[in-house]
């Protein structure tokens, strides 16, 4: 059976160009596309300056796009943003609050502005763990506490779509784990979460799908497993009972037409259709395999490959230096 997924967020061909008399034109978004389906935790990844925050700000009506189409919960935005904004909770970039108000006051004023019940304020403060510090001024908060307050403000509306830009920024390890659990719980309750983050390990753990952006364009998108599979080399790591046999084993495998890279204690083999053929070939020459494992890729390596931002020894990569992808 094929289930038709409902898109909560759709972006097509989004363009934004910043114009400055001194610095000229800079294309922040260059025909960017993204789809987030209902009930998912969707990771939004990209190097610094790739257009993530511009995308989120444009989506939320803070920036005027130069072209393209956006829709939230089936409503075209920014035209219908006032109609859907009550169902969208968002934090954009670093948390910014009036420093002389307490967390309680900050949320209470937002609740009033959004015509929400004041009852929600203590509820969300409890959820983000700020209950006991709620009456202190925001300026006394650490970055992590401000981040929690930002998440609380986004949750205040009990939104259908939650947009979080770097929510783990400044959080301690316990806080990061709490944030991960919170997102899982929210997703389980039916909320769709769009998560922009640089902590790729976290994204890989909690996200169902991802979109990767580089230089204002989408370079990869889809379920996390699919994106990883698409960029997996299909290689194998082969260890033998005796490391002394590695050169002989390499010779056998090369003769059969596969590519082999000899490492000090193992072989990296690629171009193999069936891993069992490696065992068979080597056993036929009295070379016995002690470990045969597929080489897996993680999101970090896929990200670095796709965005061309992997560090190179002796080079200092500049912020806008990323991989060009065809339009």
């Amino acid at each position, binding site marked *: 059976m094929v289930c038709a997924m409902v898109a909560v967020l759709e972006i097509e061909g989004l363009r934004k160009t910043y114009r400055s008399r001194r610095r000229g034109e800079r294309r922040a978004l260059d025909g960017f596309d993204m789809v987030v389906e209902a009930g998912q935790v969707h990771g939004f990844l990209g190097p610094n300056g790739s257009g993530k925050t511009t995308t989120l700000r444009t989506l939320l009506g803070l920036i005027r796009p130069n072209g393209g189409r956006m829709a939230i919960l089936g409503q075209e935005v920014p035209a219908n943003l006032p109609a859907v904004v009550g169902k969208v909770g968002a934090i954009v970039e670093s948390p910014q609050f009036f420093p002389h108000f307490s967390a309680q006051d900050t949320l209470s004023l937002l609740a009033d502005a*959004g015509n929400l019940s004041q009852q929600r304020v203590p509820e969300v403060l409890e959820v983000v763990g700020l209950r006991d510090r709620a009456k202190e001024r925001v300026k006394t908060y650490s970055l992590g506490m401000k981040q929690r307050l930002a998440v609380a403000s986004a949750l205040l509306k009990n939104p259908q779509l939650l947009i979080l830009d770097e929510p783990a920024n400044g959080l301690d390890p316990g806080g990061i784990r709490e944030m991960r659990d919170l997102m899982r719980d929210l997703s389980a309750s039916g909320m769709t979460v769009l998560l922009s983050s640089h902590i790729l390990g976290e994204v890989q753990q909690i996200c169902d799908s991802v979109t990767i952006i580089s230089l204002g364009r989408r370079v990869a998108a889809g379920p996390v497993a699919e994106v990883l599979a698409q960029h997996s080399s299909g290689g194998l790591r082969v260890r033998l009972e005796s490391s002394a046999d590695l050169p002989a084993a390499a010779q056998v495998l090369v003769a059969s037409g596969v590519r082999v890279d000899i490492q000090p204690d193992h072989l990296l083999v690629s171009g193999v259709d069936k891993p069992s053929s490696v065992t068979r070939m080597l056993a036929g020459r009295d070379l016995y395999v002690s470990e045969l494992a597929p080489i897996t890729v993680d999101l970090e390596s896929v990200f670095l490959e796709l965005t061309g931002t992997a560090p190179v020894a002796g080079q200092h990569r500049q912020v806008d230096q990323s991989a060009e992808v065809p339009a």
Partner: protein
Amino acid sequence: MKGLVRAEFRRLFKRRVTRLMLGLLVLALGTIITAFSLASHKIGPSELAAAETKAQSAYETQLRYHEQGVAECEAAKARGENVNEQYPPDCGREFGPQREQFDAEWFLPYEFNFHDEFGIFISVFAGIVALAAYIIGASFVGAEWHSGGMMNLLLWRPKRLSVLFTKLGVLLTSVLGVSLALGTLWTIALWLIGKFDGQTGKMTQGTWESFAISGARGIGLVLAVAAIAYGLASVGRHTAMALGVAIGAGVISEIGLRIALDIAGVKFADRYYLSTYAMAWFEKKWTLEDWNACNFSISGECKPDVFVVTWQQSALVFGLGTAVVLIAATWLMRRRDVT
């Protein structure tokens, strides 16, 4: 919309700058009232008698000095000295002080007259309240933009102009309310000073109406000032923008322009200064005179050229200024990227 209005009223009166400026405002107005209450004394028979005694005493002192001077002159003359250079003819005997020259009124204490002086106090009140309104208005939107509070609010209320004008409406309503409340207290306090420590003067319905109109003009200026501060801080997204423009306008209009026009010898240069229009606004009209011109009257008197600035012209200048700033704030609010 009701929720946003409620939130903005709460936000305005929760802000430290608002509370501080209201405190300072009450303190400044209270200090003036206290000072005038202490300085003003009701004039009665005993004060008049005391003044009469002081005038007589002053007359007698001056008379004694005069007689002493005449005696010294006579003595010098008797010694054969030439006194013509030091003393008037006849040793100044005929220039002695006269009793009627010592008016008892000069020796009376200050007595506040509500009827005659309240008009000036309306201007003083409006000036002080306008200063507070300027700072509160600038900070209300400037600090919100600068701290990111405005961006947060726009995530909840994406209709930008609605947010801009709701905040402005809340600011102006609050300034109006505070001005009316403090203005009423100010009037009552000064009237009480007149009643118990001075004179109320002959108060007619016409006098009260005149004060009410002056008060309305004063509050109108306060509201315009608050709106300009709000607009400027919104344009610059920072409180300092409004404060900087205020200082800049003051320096350019009152110092730079004054020096430049003075050097250029421009006739009626005062018509280019903002302060002239502020004075005309309060005084209904402000007359500038050019004493370099001499227009002979029928009696042969030399009269200067005059240029009259009316309160209507002031209304045009301040109204246009307010409109230009608010139009700029509106245009930018619609167009700008919130980054």
